[in-house]
């Protein structure tokens, strides 16, 4: 056996006097974390696997920290990624009236909505895809500004989607990205119960570009919604709040978390910490702040994903079964594409729904991402995080930026946090003062 290259490890100082030095090892393949002594870790990294106790060796093999010596791990990961094409995913932009101000958003700012011809063409496109019987699941992400204004379009298309999912016996799930400032409970009721949209990603912006912060409106709406409906335990986390931390002060971020904690929303709300996509996002800077906010949110009882899971496709851009649709019926492989250069757009546009078939699917530049990685054309070729990031943001790589996710720069901290969380069950228990 050999030590897998797809591991992350860090020293663990448990704080107990006289305790042997220990190390946490995380397998990016099995997503299992183990703690071993430093001496065992020393044997592992130096190839002295036979000096490791047989029982521990077997366990490490079981969780893919030790792998057969002849295994080409990169090929195994990429082959595994290539198998997952039984999901049909649509990223649907129904309007261009979001006031969040994130520059990468396809709709930009405007008062347009998806018209009937595009809606009808989209329904036909969806049926064509599902009737091919290639897919076992159908996922929709609604990218919406004002959900009230777009409700008729969303309801109409949702009815069609649910009908098609039943007809072709595929699992249907739907989520929404929206401006939470307009997500009133009456609108939510229709979206959640009739349109089957069970998860909401709401971006909070601290203001700027001449617009005030929407935080207080969003928080008010979310609390109102959570107090108004009898959610089932199995409905789990409903709201993911993305806080663009470069638009808020540290105190303001903490205040947002505190307000939602005080309203006892910990079972239904989680957080994602990011930065506005203004071309100057620095993942390393984000990583530094992110881990502090993650820890704070967990201490307030919120549930946050700490360690990334095995990712078979980085995003829709590289997923052959996915497409983003804009108001004009253009099909893109990436929702942020319209903000890119003309050359990148041209290489990755799939077609236009109003112009009919055929649509490009497999031969766009981004869709060949796995081959590019396999050929060593990217840093991902040697990166130990590939199984859990899938190669990151393909668009950023194309634009000459690093496409690595923020967790690349704080994985060791995340390992420690995960270990502490498991030991103390921080986000399972809330001990009131």
């Amino acid at each position, binding site marked *: 056996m050999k030590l897998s290259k797809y591991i992350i490890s860090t020293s663990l100082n448990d704080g107990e006097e006289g305790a042997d030095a220990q190390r946490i090892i995380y397998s990016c393949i099995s997503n299992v974390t183990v*703690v071993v002594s430093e001496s065992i870790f020393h044997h592992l990294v130096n190839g002295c696997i036979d000096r490791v106790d047989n029982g521990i060796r077997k366990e490490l093999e079981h969780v893919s920290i030790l792998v057969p010596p002849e295994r080409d791990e990169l090929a195994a990961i990429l082959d595994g990624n290539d198998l997952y094409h039984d999901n049909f995913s649509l990223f649907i932009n129904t309007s261009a009236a979001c006031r969040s101000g994130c520059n990468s958003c396809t709709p930009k700012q405007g008062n347009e909505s998806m018209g009937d011809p595009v809606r009808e063409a989209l329904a036909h496109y969806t049926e064509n895809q599902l009737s091919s019987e290639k897919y076992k*699941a159908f996922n929709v992400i609604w990218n919406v500004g004002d959900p009230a204004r777009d409700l008729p379009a969303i309801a109409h298309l949702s009815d069609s989607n649910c009908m098609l999912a039943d007809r072709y016996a595929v*699992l249907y799930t739907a989520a929404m990205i929206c401006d939470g400032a307009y997500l009133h409970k009456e609108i939510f009721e229709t979206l959640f119960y009739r349109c089957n949209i069970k998860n909401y990603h709401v971006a909070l912006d601290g203001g700027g570009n001449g617009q005030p912060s929407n935080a207080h409106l969003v928080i008010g709406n979310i609390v109102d919604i*959570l107090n108004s409906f009898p959610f089932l335990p*199995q409905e789990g*986390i409903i709201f993911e709040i993305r806080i663009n931390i470069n638009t808020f002060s540290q105190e303001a971020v903490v205040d947002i978390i505190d307000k939602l904690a005080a309203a006892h929303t910990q079972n239904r709300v989680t957080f994602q910490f990011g930065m506005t996509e203004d071309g100057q996002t620095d993942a390393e800077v984000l990583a530094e702040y992110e881990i502090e906010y993650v820890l704070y949110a967990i201490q307030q009882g919120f549930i946050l994903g700490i*360690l990334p899971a095995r990712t078979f496709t980085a995003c829709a851009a590289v997923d052959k079964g996915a497409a983003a649709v804009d108001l004009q019926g253009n099909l893109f492989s990436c929702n942020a594409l319209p903000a890119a250069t003309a050359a990148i757009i041209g290489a990755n546009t799939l077609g236009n729904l109003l112009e009919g078939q055929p649509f490009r699917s497999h031969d766009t530049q981004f869709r060949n991402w796995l081959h590019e990685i396999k050929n060593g054309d990217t840093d991902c070729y040697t990166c130990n995080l590939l199984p859990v990031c899938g190669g990151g943001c393909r668009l950023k790589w194309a634009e000459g930026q690093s496409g690595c996710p923020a967790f690349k720069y704080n994985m060791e901290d995340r390992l420690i946090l995960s270990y502490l969380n498991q030991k103390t069950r921080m986000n399972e228990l809330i001990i009131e003062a």
Partner: protein
Amino acid sequence: MLIFIQIAAYRDFLLGSTLRDLLEKAGRPDNLRITICHQYHPDDVFNAELDVYRADSRFNIIDVPYNESGGLCWARNLIQQQYKGEEYTLQVDSHMRFIRNWDTVLIDMLLSLQQQGYPKPVLTTYPPHFDPAGFEYKDVPPNQIVFREFDRSGVFPIGWPAQIPDWETLTGPVPARFLAGGFTFSIGAFCQEILDDPHLYFMGEEINLAVRAYTHGYDLFHPHINITWHYYSRRESPKHWDDHAATEAVEIHAMDRLRKFFESGQHSSYYDWGVYGLGNVRSLSDYEHYAGILLCKKQVQQYTLKHLPPPNPHVYHTQEEWQESFCCCVNNVLRIPRRVFVKDDYDAATITFVANQQEVYQRSLDANDIAGMLHSQTDDCMLDISFSCSHLPDTWCLSLHSASGGWDRKVRGRMPYFVAGLGNFAIKKCHVL
């Protein structure tokens, strides 16, 4: 009178001994027609035990390499395709023991039910446990299947074995709500009318069969004497999900199908059920009245919770009154970290259960209850909880009182089924090796 015996075996070292016992204990072994879906691993040495039956005209052995198996429901469906018009059918697991003359006893029971006016009876139950290492044949009380709770994904009701009360006075089978996949005996036509749904995986198969059987005009009964024994747990045997990747995704699809199946009783959809849908002799609502279980609303009647035999009495003047007789049911074990109990003189506690921030149940604990919790040898203290309520709680809140310090700070935690549904948000176990 031939009996079509269906046995789906997955890498089971007890298959050979089960077949020997089946044949030795049969009153008329020549009337048995046994079809086995033998899902095997080439390295399993016990495979050879089947060789003695390969030339036996009573046996039809379908060999399937383990990696080609589609799971339990798939295997059972495959077996049912082999039905050739036998008068009776028995479906059992591959790890069983039988009473002497089990076949004639079952046939006599079925005939007596038909004489009582049940043309399509089904005899079924969760048999008592046996230990293969030291099994003694002796008379034991018969079991019934009682309602325990809805599963952690909140889709289907879970049945549990319990001794039939006053079984010594019984002279015939008792009506049943549930069906056991591991022991079902009926007329042969059952194999054609109630085919196992291959789109289900494992969980939920039995309630699906029970509802379909009932709506197709079958009547479910528990035998009033014990017929078989079943080996539960089986930790030493590999399961299908141990050998196959991505079974979690398969299970999610199966649960979606099961949920749609229950909803099909309330409204029509484009979902094509083929031969796997509801029957037209009785409705889903008829089953819900009979069993006292609302399959879509996940609620049960107190009569059902008390394990009283169906059909549930209908003493309601209106449909609304009948609906209001149902409640949610919690039957679980809370694991509360030991570190919460900071004092050693706790004498009382209250634990409150909350659904969407509304209290739905409260229980008081005395010093003995607390001592019982602390008695656990693990890092967690265990508390058995069982109650009915209007809404399923997502959170519990524990207040502890000590003689020395009065009331402690409150501790809030999440219900186990809520935590189980967190997916990638769940606390990842960190194994210390």
